């Protein structure tokens, strides 16, 4: 460390001895200054083109009356101030009401899905922490839902949830005798639970993978010391494993929350373009209301509101969890 700190300081002094050396030093200094930016340039251009500029455009569009007549030349659409926002947030009218309902459904769905994903992932990772026969096989097996392409997995679930020829009704109705007639799973109120099952099935392996990685960073001697003190497995899990996972959990829960709240693929493949009301997640709702009515101004306003909500939740969450961690350390 000391050596690397000294070298750059001495280098210019040596080079200054000859005038030509001074020039190359300056030039290489400038080049060194530009180098990190050159390295970043491709990433920067792509991020601007695909993420940032479209997002700013989306924000601009939310202030415009952007109907199908203006799609070809969106810049010429008339400005409409906050009209799109007031339409979206007018909960007495149809548009606002259905948006609010979709938002609340999404909140409920997200809390349940993230909670279950976290629970299953953590439980599996901790139970697989110690070696036993078959551990490697199970670890690989549990990652299969994560590896399967979303649409292939969700299409299979859609088949399982078919009313007349699906597995779920065969088990529940034919084999266990629940209900007078086979239930509908992909329309009506049941669709919420169908969507939740698919979402948890698809999402928990990521929690498993992350927690598993986090477990590898816990020093072994902590367990050794605890077991010398006579702490059993359950005590070790409660007092060593779970507290050590806190930093991992902080990131994991946030990432799961954002993915689940924004999830479009799962409901879109499970239900097709029109999701039943009970499972009308907000991304699909915005997509539908934009493309059905071709009113992209209002759709953009809804997306901006969604983004604002996610920003606020993320900010508050990071503030709370970071502060909580600091005080618990003291």
């Amino acid at each position: 460390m000391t050596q690397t700190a000294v070298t750059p300081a001495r280098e210019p002094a040596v080079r200054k001895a000859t005038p030509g050396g001074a020039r190359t030093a300056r030039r290489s200094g400038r080049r060194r200054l530009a180098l990190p930016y050159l390295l970043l340039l491709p990433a920067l251009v792509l991020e601007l083109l695909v993420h940032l500029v479209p997002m700013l455009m989306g924000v601009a569009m939310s202030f415009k009356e952007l109907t199908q007549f203006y799609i070809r030349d969106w810049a010429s659409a008339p400005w409409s101030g906050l009209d799109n926002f007031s339409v979206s947030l007018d909960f007495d009218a149809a548009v606002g009401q259905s948006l609010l309902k979709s938002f609340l459904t999404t909140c409920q769905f997200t809390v349940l899905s993230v909670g279950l994903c976290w629970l299953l992932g953590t439980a599996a990772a901790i139970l697989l922490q110690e070696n036993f026969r078959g551990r490697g096989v199970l670890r690989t097996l549990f990652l299969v839902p994560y590896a399967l392409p979303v649409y292939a997995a969700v299409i299979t679930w859609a088949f399982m949830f078919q009313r007349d020829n699906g597995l779920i009704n065969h088990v529940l109705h034919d084999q266990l005798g629940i209900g007078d007639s086979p239930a509908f799973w992909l329309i009506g109120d049941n669709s919420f639970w169908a969507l939740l099952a698919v979402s948890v099935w698809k999402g928990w392996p990521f929690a498993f993978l992350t927690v598993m990685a986090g477990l590898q960073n816990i020093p072994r001697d902590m367990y050794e010391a605890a077991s010398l003190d006579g702490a059993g497995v359950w005590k070790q899990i409660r007092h060593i494993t779970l507290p050590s996972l806190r930093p991992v959990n902080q990131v994991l829960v946030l990432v799961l929350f954002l993915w689940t709240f924004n999830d479009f693929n799962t409901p879109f493949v499970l239900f097709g373009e029109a999701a039943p009301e009970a499972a009308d997640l907000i991304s699909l709702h915005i997509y539908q209301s934009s493309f059905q009515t071709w009113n992209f101004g209002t759709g953009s306003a809804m997306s901006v509101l969604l983004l604002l909500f996610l920003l606020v939740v993320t900010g508050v969450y990071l503030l709370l969890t970071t502060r909580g961690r600091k005080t618990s350390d003291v």
Partner: protein
Amino acid sequence: MSEAAHGRPSRPRSPMAPPRSFLWTRRIVLTLLTGFVLLPVYVMISSSLKPLEDVSGKFEWIPSALTLRPYADIWETIPLADYFVNSIVVAGAATVFSVVVAIFAAYAVSRYSFRGKRVFTVTVLSTQMFPGILFLLPLFLIYVNIGNATGIALFGSREGLILTYLTFSLPFSIWMLTGYFDSIPRELDEAAKVDGCGPIRALFRVIVPAARPGIVAVAVYAFMTAWGEVLFASVMTNDTTRTLAVGLQGYSTQNDVYWNQVMAASLVVSVPVVVGFLLLQRYLVAGLTAGAVK
């Protein structure tokens, strides 16, 4: 497995054998989870081998008749081979470019201090929380306008989709690789520079080889992201550039669904990614350990 047999003879916890309550919890929970995970896999495989009459009637746990017909029919009912080619080209190209771009960016973030570094990393990471729906339409308009102005067809073409997907996996890839590069001792590339390597040579001679697990992990992630994406693929492709995601989604929402064929097709499109993933998963765990979890 052999590693388990003679690795560490006594694991730290073994002085006290785990109590029976723990062993039973482990057995029950892991059995239930295995069933939950395997259920759709079993349905997919068994239904893909049934004749059409059997998948249209009541579900059967044990197929009464087996046939390989669905696997032959899928290539005729829909242009599955074309979708396959499109998906492979798009996901493959997006992966290669994404990994290269991420390596350069992560090298800059990990090894240099420069103005705007924090702004860059925070901005790039925060794009992860954008709802896709917010920039779907603007991006569509940008691609159409670029096409009108320059004649480069981005909308409806594979190139446009490649560009989109490679950017989607970029934030996570940069983040993970930066963490990975940080864990490689600086002395290694300093030594290479003393030996006369320029910064780029040092990157490819020293850092890239040392970070191979992280790079593999990022590549797997990028490929899976591109292979499984539905929303942008359904808006930004046309009949000739349609990917598997859109093709299969359409296949399964027709009026009369041939479920045995749909299951066979789902299995066929899953095999390349699942096999690749399972072969490389240890790198992903290693990459996550070094990169994301700090």
